[in-house]
């Protein structure tokens, strides 16, 4: 694809997400869909983090731990320390990344299923820690978080007070959509930078990369910290939207879902996690009509997709390109 085509695609995506979707939803009166779309945007941000760890050849089933940490950091800073919510978003990301560095130093030496299993366990550690630590308010969790306040530079109000809005759904949707666009833009840049090429080198052969003078230990930490940063940011915004955070806000199931989003979209494509999250979440919501058979149908569809498109939905693009090349 040429550069101008890519630029047009990116602009189209921005326009669709920030203009077309809100207009369409408000004219049709389907305001209930905002919440679904907000959720999809946030989950795809967390999934993008998981995708980064896949990109260096590690299977990360621990993203829910960092989302939970991010949610708690934001909630605790807002409620117990009186911070502005907007400041807690980067703070949540940074705390998550710092914890990821601390945990990552030993566990990133593990590979394959070992790394996968340890990260899976870490989700459970985060949940149990949230239950046991005094700072997290135990099993009751934290509820009734205040809505985000305003941001103003002098007389100019950049973001109005969420509490003054009649309907915060649109505001939260825009916040999540913009975050998602920024994150995927960032990931796209990262993948196509020098660092991105080094990440591919790690994915293909760590020993070989090391022998070429690549500091693999440092790169692994960078990738994992960035991945966890995204998890923390998503968790922080999620806690503001649901106005609460509990030890069970993000569980092992979520960790597995983040991984599934990446797989389903396609591990070889930056926008794979976005598409995967969209398909899985929308599919799940549509299936709620099927009541008790919801999970059954979902699982069967998932298995069928896996059998037909084991390399992700976006691998269809690759197939077409290959056919055209012939």
């Amino acid at each position, binding site marked *: 694809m040429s550069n101008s085509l890519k630029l047009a695609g990116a602009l189209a995506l921005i326009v669709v997400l920030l203009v077309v979707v809100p207009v369409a939803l408000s004219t049709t009166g389907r305001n209930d869909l905002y919440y679904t779309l907000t959720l999809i945007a946030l989950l795809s941000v967390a999934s993008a983090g998981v995708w980064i760890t896949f990109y260096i050849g590690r299977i990360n089933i621990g993203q829910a731990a960092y989302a939970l940490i991010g949610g708690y950091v934001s909630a605790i800073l807002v409620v117990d320390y009186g911070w502005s919510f907007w400041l807690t978003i980067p703070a949540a990301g940074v705390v998550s990344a710092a914890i990821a560095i601390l945990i990552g130093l030993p566990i990133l030496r593990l590979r394959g299923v070992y790394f996968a299993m340890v990260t899976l366990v870490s989700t459970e550690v985060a949940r149990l820690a949230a239950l*046991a630590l005094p700072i997290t308010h135990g099993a009751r969790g934290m509820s009734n978080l205040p809505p985000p306040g305003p941001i103003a530079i002098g007389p100019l109000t950049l973001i109005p007070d969420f509490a003054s809005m009649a309907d915060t759904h649109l505001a939260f949707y825009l916040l999540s959509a913009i975050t998602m666009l920024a994150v995927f833009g960032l990931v796209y840049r990262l993948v196509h930078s020098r660092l991105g090429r080094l990440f591919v080198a790690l994915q293909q052969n760590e020993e070989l990369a090391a022998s070429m003078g690549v500091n693999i230990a440092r790169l692994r930490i960078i990738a994992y910290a960035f991945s966890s940063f995204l998890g923390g940011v998503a968790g922080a915004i999620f806690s503001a939207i649901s106005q609460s955070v509990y030890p069970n806000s993000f569980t092992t199931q979520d960790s597995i879902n983040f991984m599934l989003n990446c797989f389903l979209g396609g591990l070889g494509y930056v926008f794979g996690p976005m598409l995967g999250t969209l398909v899985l979440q929308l599919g799940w919501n549509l299936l709620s009509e099927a009541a008790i058979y919801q999970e059954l149908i*979902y699982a069967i569809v998932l298995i069928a997709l896996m059998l037909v498109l084991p390399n992700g939905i976006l691998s269809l693009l690759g197939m077409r390109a290959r056919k055209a090349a012939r």
Partner: protein
Amino acid sequence: MEQVIVNGLYLGAQYALIALGLTLIFALMNVLNFAHGQMYVLGGFITYTVYGQLHLPFVVALIASSITLAILGALIEKFLFRTVIRRSKREESTMLLAAAIAFLLDAVILIVFGEKGHGVPKILNGVLNTGAIIIPYDRILVGCLAAVFIAAFMAFMQFSKPGRAMRALAQDRQAAQLMGVNVDRYSMIGFAVGALLAGLVGGLLVSIVGVSSGIGGSISTKAFMMVMIGGAGVVGGAIAGGFILGMLEAVGLTVLHAYGDITYLVIFVGLMIFLAIRPNGLMGKPWG
């Protein structure tokens, strides 16, 4: 103290049997079977139906659980895993498949057996009380049965022809194939045996703790931990991991009782530190 050790041994025997199935599947196919806990639950429900509802002997129920799960495991390997492994670019894709199968089994179990937990009549009544230790007879029986099954499994792997073929596969898939081992066939048998073990433990434990539909995921997590402690893909490691986790749990519940419900938090953190020092567990192979 003796009580704690007996509890730990009893738990350990169950855990080891669960971990053996998981590690076997991993060793043969490099598949991390997320659905292992669900297979355990399914085995529990089959035993519940045959023994608790139809009132057939417990042994018949155990056999029914084992055989059903073995067939299920074989079918899953043949029609799902084999296809995905052949078509996929990255072998991690099998994880997605395993997770989807876990969803599927969870859904089926929920629809067929409902949300409620179920128990069955005790297989043995009475309690052994020697003064130092108090343990119900049925727990002794189940613990001993588990130990017998572990021994039988090890003998099967060590001395039978399929066992030898599977050990060869685990060591080096390509070399085994060159030596004339039918890789497809023994992968299927291996998956069937792994699933059989999960069903067997599920059936055994339903007589003690009952069974309910939502516990599959946490059983899988525990099994992963045991495999990590002992080292993935190693039979001895799985057994060691099972007994170590059983002991830790028994000791933790007694010692840490005063500090609230933090046994598992402590075990998890300990495990992380342990893996930082020994990334491949006690006996694991150096690669992942």
